[in-house]
């Protein structure tokens, strides 16, 4: 299974996780893992997800998540997990 990483970075506020999860649930995207941390008031979250059951393709999901990010004032990016695996794992 190809895993995909959603990262969310921005000023902390109420409802960030809710908004992202609402979108994922509505598009048949299963969350495999979540981690979050606050660094100097900045909210950082990564979600590892499986987008294979979604009707939408990678580019569409990436662009819709980006738009949700813009609406709630955070940066949301979608990336294939391989880029992190390659860089940090031998």
């Amino acid at each position, binding site marked *: 299974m190809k895993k995909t990483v959603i990262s969310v970075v921005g000023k902390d506020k109420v409802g960030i996780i809710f908004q992202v999860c609402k979108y994922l649930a509505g598009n048949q995207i299963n969350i495999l893992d979540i981690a979050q941390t606050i660094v100097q008031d900045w909210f*950082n*979250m990564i979600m*590892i997800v499986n987008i294979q059951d979604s009707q939408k393709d990678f580019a569409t999901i990436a662009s819709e998540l980006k738009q949700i990010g813009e609406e709630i004032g955070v940066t949301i*990016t979608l*990336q294939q997990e391989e*880029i992190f695996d*390659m*860089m*940090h794992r031998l």
Partner: protein
Amino acid sequence: MININEVMETNTMIREDNLDVRTITMGISLLDCISTSLKDTCDKVYDKITTSAKDLVRVGKDLETEYGIPIVNKRISLTPIAMVGSSCCKGSKDYVEIAKTLDAAAKEVGVNFIGGYSALVSKGMTPYDEMLIRSIPEALNVTEYVCSSVNVGSTKTGINMDAVKLLGEIIRETAELTADRDCIGPAKFVVFCNAPDDNPFMAGAFHGVTEADKIINVGVSGPGVVKRALEQVRGENFEVLCETIKKTAFKVTRVGQLVAKEASKRLGVPFGIIDLSLAPTPAIGDSVGEILEEIGLEYAGAPGTTAALALLNDQVKKGGVMASSYVGGLSGAFIPVSEDQRMIDAASCGALTLEKLEAMTCVCSVGLDMIAIPGDTKATTISGIIADEMAIGMVNQKTTAVRIIPAVGKKVGEVLEFGGLLGYAPIMKVNEYSCDAFINRGGRIPAPIHSFKN
């Protein structure tokens, strides 16, 4: 499973430190396009390029979206055109027609540059090599995307001084023809010693005759990432410094390896090499000059610069080699003046001179790169500068290059403005003493002895 700190580290490199893949370059052999008719050759060349590279830009963009990493350039390198036109070109004008065809093909597939308008004359020039060389000023004048290069020397053959002499004149003529566009012509032309067959970087990329029919070569980058990593080890000793550069180069190169393998798979074209080069851009925080400053120099060019660059270059290779299955191309730190803001600053304030840059090229790739010189510099002086740089490559068994731009109508202290990745270049002082008698001798410098190294 991947953890949050690793994701944050990678994304900080991309967002804040300008980590990118500098280029995906598709090498295409045009040997099967050689024909006795010019029209037939041009048609075959156009068809082969536009068929082979039709998906190159789309695949590059898809990979950018999926991995979230910018892939700045998509390029094409070709079999040296001197060979491709050898049967059908009766004069330099015919070669210019091929150049126009390449330009049209590049435009059609949407790439940033197309390289390989080249001749390999390290030992001697055939009539068709000379025709191509003499066509370079007009070819670069009438095209937008075409890049050109000539290999005039190698460790095995010595230096073809007839070609060196001719190229001094050709560079001047190219600058004069493009004077109305800040002399952009010579910025797309490079003279080599020991030119590699698989270089993905422009202006010197060509697809060597030892290569497969098609190949994917990738050039990585990341000066900003190295600079950021070195900020964390200020004041530490050389062991810590070197380890930090090595580890960072490893991470940067792994991204290039991923992109190269995936591009190769999706395009159905074999993966060639990763070029491990720290390639700067004029953007703030994407500078090799800034790394040299972070290592401990007030400006690039200060005493210690050659040593600092030597260690930087070596560590980048040591880290990068482990990260990639095949390494090639130029592989090292680039020191183009106009494409690096801190190098521009160092040259402008007088810390960095042409002579110091020449010394620096002994320990890094690739050579005197993107340097503007006064417009009244004589052709023989340009040939002298080329000869010196070629000698460094020949004796040290490394690739060296010269991409030098005579700024027609301008003097030291003025600036040439190219825009985009090519940046802008302060005009640097050139030693004005004559080398006319040396350049006018003609012939070639013999290959150096490979023993008794001192």
